[in-house]
């Protein structure tokens, strides 16, 4: 019952910024939120529950993104705010001004993952030596998705063109010389067909799973 009330309140306060909620037990609540709404969510909790106790922040390097789990405790219920940020952004908004106890764990995250914690009141070394190399953070993995190197070009080509073997000028010329159209009647020869294919790919989250950047038309990792 308590969990349900917390969820209802957070939905009301955050609206569409709440993405998914679950309460596997009455005293456990998971709320997935948009990363941009993190501070708003913490402020809302603090406002409603003055006895809110900050527990910790868990950070998970998922290869292509960081998952941040902000854990709180209120009135016997553990609440976890889950937010996700692309690794390229490399940012976490500090909540230390709202809940001062977050100060140390945010410094730890900054150090061990090399994540920039924005607006932290006093960012300085906590565990590692001051001269620790920026590019050798102990808990940080390389930017990497689920595809092995050999599959990356195939996936890029499949997603961007709907075809795994892009055609060369030479082949185009030879096709024409043989009386064939320059390219076969592939979807990429028609804008509407490509819109359809890209719509399907986005809808089934294929591009998201493999980490495809639609603007650059390539994978976010090589």
């Amino acid at each position: 019952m308590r969990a349900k009330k917390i969820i209802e309140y957070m939905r009301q306060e955050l609206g569409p910024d709440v993405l998914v909620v679950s309460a596997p037990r009455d005293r456990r609540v998971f709320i997935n939120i948009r990363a941009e709404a993190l501070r708003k969510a913490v402020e809302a909790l603090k406002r409603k529950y003055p006895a809110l106790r900050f527990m910790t922040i868990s950070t998970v390097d998922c290869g292509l993104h960081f998952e941040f789990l902000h854990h709180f405790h209120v009135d016997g219920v553990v609440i976890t705010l889950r937010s996700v940020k692309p690794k390229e952004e490399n940012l976490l908004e500090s909540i230390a001004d709202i809940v001062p106890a977050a100060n140390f764990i945010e410094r730890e995250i900054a150090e061990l993952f090399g994540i920039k914690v924005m607006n932290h009141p006093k960012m300085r070394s906590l565990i590692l030596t001051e001269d620790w190399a920026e590019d050798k953070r102990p808990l940080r993995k390389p930017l990497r998705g689920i595809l092995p190197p050999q599959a990356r070009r195939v996936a890029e080509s499949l997603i961007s063109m709907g075809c795994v073997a892009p055609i060369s000028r030479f082949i185009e010329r030879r096709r024409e010389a043989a009386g064939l159209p320059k390219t076969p009647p592939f979807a990429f020869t028609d804008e509407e067909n490509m819109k359809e294919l890209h719509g399907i790919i986005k809808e089934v989250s294929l591009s998201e799973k493999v980490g495809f950047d639609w603007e650059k038309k390539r994978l976010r990792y090589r």
Partner: protein
Amino acid sequence: MVKYALFLGCLIPMRMPSVEIASRRVFERIGLESVDLKGYTCCPEPVFSRLIDETGQLVISARNLALAEELGLDIMTLCNGCYETLLETNETLKNKSDEMLRVNRILENYGKKYRGLIKVKHAIEVLYEDIGIEKIRECVTKPLKIRVAMHYGCHLYRDLSGDIMRKPRMMKEITSLTGVEIADYGLERLCCGYPSMQVDEEFSLTHRLLPKIKRMVEAGAEAVVLTCPACTIQFETGQVLLRKRGIQYEIPCINIMELLALSFGFSSRDIHLDLHRGPILRLIKKVEGD
């Protein structure tokens, strides 16, 4: 007239158009009408796409099937990989109504729907079952006097009947109509190594491709007859990579459609056979003389 929607796939039209050219010449000669599938996409390729996202693979594949269904035609593939992907999608959707619903829920957002009304066939099956051996035999005007080894390709063994040799037998019989002598070398069923090439080049070349080529050459084969474009790439580029390891083999590859076209009297120039990356000139000389 026998009529099919032609699914060209990616590799054949983009990397080895001589196979497409030869196929079109052969279809015309034997009276098989092939209708191009406008707006088609990759089948999608059967190795990675299924592992990444099964729903995505099913929907993209079903979209291709829906294009053929809109034309009211069964689909015919030239490529073994496309054959397997489309055949398996078709069977999944026909037999699992929940999958069909799930896939159509997505396709319907784009004005498409697949009802499961069409069949998927490999060109080998179409030639054998719809056109018939006699008709093909009639079209052979220039029997080819060469000794060849067959490489059927793993996906050709996939068969709904459970008889995995059904299509390889058809392929062998059609090949023998061209006048060639077929050299049995005992490793026909061994994979060429194309899929393992993506993971372990050494294994792929020395434990898959090399034993096959060795046995083919020992059996006196002057060329390899294939139907799968991926296997063709493996044989052609694999021999180049083996040379870098000090292993010298120069056995040309020819697609069964190209072989048929030559035996139907088309010249190697007509079908642009020089587009092959392998030592095809030696084979052309042998077939056509200097």
